[in-house]
């Protein structure tokens, strides 16, 4: 039996919506709640839930800031989040390489 490295797959990152959020955050400096909602197509409740999980894992940083005097909830990927995304990519690559034809 071929052993597949499922343990290496981070379940926090593996969830499609969170993977989408993290990938989006990896190509920008920071974004607000509305922007992520629009880009991912997630509902307000869903997005809040996923962001809470990502924040609890230390993968994103969330803080309230004023942009031109308008309050925004800004979200940015943390260093740990970048590393988690890189680990996930390596793990998935490794996993798929081991999948037999």
């Amino acid at each position, binding site marked *: 039996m071929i052993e597949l490295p499922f343990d290496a797959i981070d379940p926090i990152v593996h969830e499609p919506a969170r993977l989408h959020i993290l990938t989006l955050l990896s190509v920008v400096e920071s974004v607000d709640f509305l922007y992520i909602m629009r880009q991912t197509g997630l509902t307000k409740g869903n997005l809040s839930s996923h962001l809470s999980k990502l924040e609890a894992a230390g993968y994103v940083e969330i803080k309230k800031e004023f942009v031109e*005097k308008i309050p925004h909830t800004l979200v940015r990927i943390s260093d740990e989040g970048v590393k988690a995304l890189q680990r996930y990519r390596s793990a998935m690559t490794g996993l798929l390489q081991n999948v037999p034809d």
Partner: protein
Amino acid sequence: MEKSLDPQQLAREVWRDSLQDGLYELSIGVGMLITALVLQTSLASLVIIIAIIAPPIIKKLKARITYPRTGYVNLPDESKKLGRIMILLLGFAVVVILVLVVFWNKTNEKLVIYKWFPLLPAILFQGGFIPTGIKSGLARYYVYAVVAMVLGIVCVIPNLPGRFGNLSLYLAGISLFLLPWGIILLLRFIKKYTPPEDVERQDD
């Protein structure tokens, strides 16, 4: 719409998204038009003030028009990279102008350096439009680059009075090209996106 998870594709989409409000075209168009008008007065040094006050005005417009509709995005800071490109292009433009002036001076009696000035912004615009086209994947920025260059060449032909006659003609020309684009893009953006009523409550 199916979204890509390819980071490069996603980055292009983010750039494309940030350019759909037309403020890029409008800010360059308005800025160049004002510069063209100022250069025709005795207050040419006011151009520096325009360069200083333009970025905060654009930020305010984004905050009022764009962010309430599509959300706030802070793109990676590439000002250092852009600065290096602009310095290289500026050096290149100066060399091109000097070579042309020397060549022109050999074949003509008069040394008319000022008439070659349109080539300066024409070359500098390449450093703005082409990277924007590459980053966003939008073909219109390549069209802008071609128009900016062709217009620069065309604007050195007439012998206009004053030091900045040809340069003002160029800046007014590029402005009149970009402003309608900007207005169309902005109107389309406003029509396409209506600001949600509870923008501030969305993130609670």
